[in-house]
């Protein structure tokens, strides 16, 4: 879907419904505080996702701005969460904007305070290697939340 923002206070409430770790909670509190005080208080969109695999999860179909990615990993099997600036398809080429390895049951976070412009959209997948495309099994792929704002 195209970007569909909501009031940042409502977005914050929804964002914090995610099962955040103690560290993630503190970081996200600081990030929302910064967004509201210095980051222009943009309207935001929250998109939750569950267990990424090699089948694309579409977070955004259209232009937008990526603000944060929270990756909640529940197993210790290594998985690479990969994100591409595309509205339907992940490809390992210059549309790929972020690749993060996780190998612990942990929550890891990527923040773009000024936003990462998305020209086409945002899709995510999870693979068993950084350079390959074999799907992460079952619950090995990360669950999480992405935070978006308008282009």
């Amino acid at each position, binding site marked *: 879907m195209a970007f569909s923002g909501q009031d940042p206070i409502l977005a914050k409430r929804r964002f914090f419904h995610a099962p955040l770790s*103690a560290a993630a909670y503190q970081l996200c509190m600081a990030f929302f505080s910064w967004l509201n005080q210095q980051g222009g208080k943009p309207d935001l969109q929250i998109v939750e996702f569950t267990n990424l695999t090699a089948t694309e999860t579409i977070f955004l179909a259209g232009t937008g701005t990526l603000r944060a990615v929270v990756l909640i990993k529940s197993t210790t099997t290594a998985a690479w969460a990969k994100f591409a600036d595309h509205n339907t398809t992940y490809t390992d080429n210059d549309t790929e904007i972020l690749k993060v390895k996780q190998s612990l049951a942990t929550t*890891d976070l*990527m923040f773009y305070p000024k936003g990462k412009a998305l020209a086409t959209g945002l899709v995510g997948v999870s693979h068993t290697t950084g350079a390959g495309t074999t799907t992460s099994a079952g619950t090995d792929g990360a669950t999480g939340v992405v935070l978006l704002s308008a282009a």
Partner: protein
Amino acid sequence: MAFSGSDPVLAKQRFFNFARIAPGIYPLAVAFFSYLTQNGLARPQAENTLQVVEFTYGTNTAQVICGATARLLALVLAKPTATAGFTKISDHATDYSGSAITVMLKQAAVQTDVLFYPKGLLHSTGITLESHTACDGTTTSAAGDGAAGVALIAAAAAV
């Protein structure tokens, strides 16, 4: 070099010498060190647990963040130009290895972005950094196009 920890208070000071230049990063770094202080890795009695490694503008000449096993806790990337650059981190002691890539981040604007691993991402061999002009290539980012930044690392056993 292998992991060489310093007092966490000194590590924090050194980390903020870099992080302070980006207003969006500063409050996140404050929150992260607060977490580390409350949850073990940076308690005053936990000496020499953290190491701060600054790096300059990335190219396709590998910069060694750590030459042996270590955990990556935080990575701040300050992009100085709007030319797209792909910063890549790999699990290697001396060089960049595409098959051992652990983190890749595209930046195409003048901005500073940050990645946090609160429990650390274990690199079993080492941590190296390069910057390329493409995600799937190895052409070097031109001088000044690759991100400069700072990495916060911990010993491999410190989770």
